[in-house]
């Protein structure tokens, strides 16, 4: 036992004594996703990995078990210890991640945010975003068209604190004001839980039989909402506009449960983020924001649906 501890201490000291500075030719990039097991983030990872290979960069990916800061921060800390040149991160909270990310910056690592962002962006080299305001507007316009300008509408989203979703909801609500025939019932919150989404839909159906449309701001919520509608026997009768194009959502679009998808291009976002990381390593200065595309896919447009589907297996 004593011998064992002695050897360990020796190796430790040797290890720490050796150089700890950030190597000048450091081509290591770390990608920290928002959560494990999300098709959006998996597609993002695919895009990043393909691009990393192309550019000759060393990419490692990590993800927390849950989309919450107390789950993500230990992962951020561990990544920080590996001293990568660039970290691409999807922050799970606009406030709680500021501290840990600042620590990364202090240690010399350059930061890129993707999909979500934080309140203090002064030390972020660039934020890769889709235009969530545009997305919310598109959704409102699509909703108006689908419900024929009248009826009640709800929004199913995550609790405030996720910038992307907050922006989508705000833009949707704002644009909806242009359509006086539509009665807006307000937002309902679910924490990325399809089960909860389904429950929200069934309860709302009971309370408001004149419910005409639902806007869901992310993929997990959409999956749950469609389940709720099928349970209530209202699939197809109530119009659904959903953000994202996970496989389940694309299927729902094709079989008529969802009428319009507001699709981002996570694979492209991953590629773009990787490209920006390469530029950072080369010493270039970047714009504060890098926007990627967002499209509305209507029912029947199967070609685009397939094209924009978030594929988790990197095909």
């Amino acid at each position: 036992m004593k011998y064992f501890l002695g050897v360990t201490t020796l190796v430790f000291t040797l290890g720490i004594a050796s150089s700890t500075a950030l190597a000048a030719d450091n081509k290591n990039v770390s990608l920290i996703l928002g959560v494990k097991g999300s098709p959006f983030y998996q597609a993002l990872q695919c895009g990043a990995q393909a691009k990393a290979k192309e550019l000759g960069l060393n990419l490692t990916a990590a993800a927390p078990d849950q989309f919450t800061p107390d789950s993500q921060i230990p992962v951020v800390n561990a990544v920080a210890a590996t001293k990568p040149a660039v970290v691409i991160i999807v922050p799970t909270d606009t406030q709680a991640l500021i501290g840990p990310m600042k620590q990364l910056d202090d240690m010399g690592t350059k930061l890129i945010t993707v999909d979500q962002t934080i309140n203090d962006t002064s030390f972020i080299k660039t934020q890769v975003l889709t235009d969530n305001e545009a997305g919310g507007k598109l959704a409102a316009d699509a909703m108006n068209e689908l419900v024929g300008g009248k009826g009640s509408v709800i929004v199913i989203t995550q609790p405030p604190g996720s910038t992307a979703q907050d922006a989508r909801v705000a833009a949707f609500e704002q644009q909806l004001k242009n359509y006086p025939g539509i009665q807006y019932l307000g937002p309902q919150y679910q924490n990325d839980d399809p089960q909860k989404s389904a429950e929200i839909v069934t309860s709302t159906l009971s309370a408001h039989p004149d419910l005409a449309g639902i806007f869901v701001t992310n993929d997990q919520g959409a999956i749950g909402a469609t389940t709720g509608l099928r349970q209530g026997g209202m699939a197809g009768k109530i119009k659904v506009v959903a953000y994202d194009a996970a496989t389940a959502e694309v299927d729902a679009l094709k079989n008529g449960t969802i009428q319009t998808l507001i699709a981002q291009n996570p694979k492209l976002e991953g590629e773009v983020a990787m490209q920006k990381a390469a530029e950072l390593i080369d010493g270039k200065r970047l714009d504060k924001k890098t926007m990627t595309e967002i499209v509305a896919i209507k029912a029947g447009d199967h070609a685009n649906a397939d094209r924009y589907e978030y594929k988790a297996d990197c095909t």
Partner: protein
Amino acid sequence: MSAPPSSITRPPPDPPELPHQRLRQLLGGGWIFLLLVVLIAVFGILRPTQFGSAYNLSQLTINAAILLVLSVGQTFVIIAAGVDLSVGAVLVFCSVLSAKVMLHLSGAPGTSFGTTDTSWPVILVGSITAIAAGTAWGALNGVLIGMVRIPPLIVTLGTFGMALGFSQLLTNGVDVRAMPELLVANIGSGSILGIPSLVVIAALVTIVMAIVLHLTRFGVRVFAIGSSLEATRRAGINVHAQLVAIYAISGALAGVAAIMANARFATTTIGGHSLDNLATISAVVLGGTSLFGGIGSIAGTVVGVFIPIILLNGFVILGIPPFWQTVATGAVLIVAVWIDQMKRRTQRG
């Protein structure tokens, strides 16, 4: 009076207890502590500058701090043959209540972002609120379990839901994002004599509670209740009051953890902490405490808390794909407890 029959043989007296046997006893059989050392050594050898850096090691202890405080409370409960599933939700409730109180006393509007400019007395009031609220939830658990005789699993599952529900009612599901600057800067990211403040708090809590559990009469009775509720009752001990106190301790420590979480994250995290209860239970069991009660130690819990944290940290540093991390952590847990059980059985026999 008759003399004992000569056919009865007398067993030899006890050999004196060797120091390493006592150490072993304290560390749940020693096996788990060895596992911890092995893990540290392996990751340290594979990635010395990254895993072994001062930064990483201090982050590990900070990450462990909040979970450790919760797990110390859970240790008391599990040794008493109970279980407390409400810990994560009570933490959330206490953090929300305390944050709202501090925000209100600071005069800032309810939707503030960032940090507020309030003083230490306000922070003290917020902290007392958190601990008092946690103690109240814990006492409720204890009353329902001890006096109304509902099984702990059911009661604490119920209070889990209630505490979380009340948190969401209090806030409409929206996190309180304005914490006192002094709290965040000095406790959340500050240090005392070079050691992160959160770690100092966790260490103090652990040491004090270890003293209570292993050296006081109250602690002896915790073990007694876990070992045999009936025997303890027949010995004239008020088991109802004792159970209320035990669960109240768990709740109070959740309140302390809430203060630490507020300081660390600079926001309440209503959506988080839902799996804290399982994390504390596995830490306690990993550390050698028996789920059936009567056996356990705080030192074991400390080891049990660090093992999953070090595993996660090491796996991320090594770049192991996220899903494999989950598989590996689960496997280590099972193997560790299994070997521990086998050792116990050979010791008994």
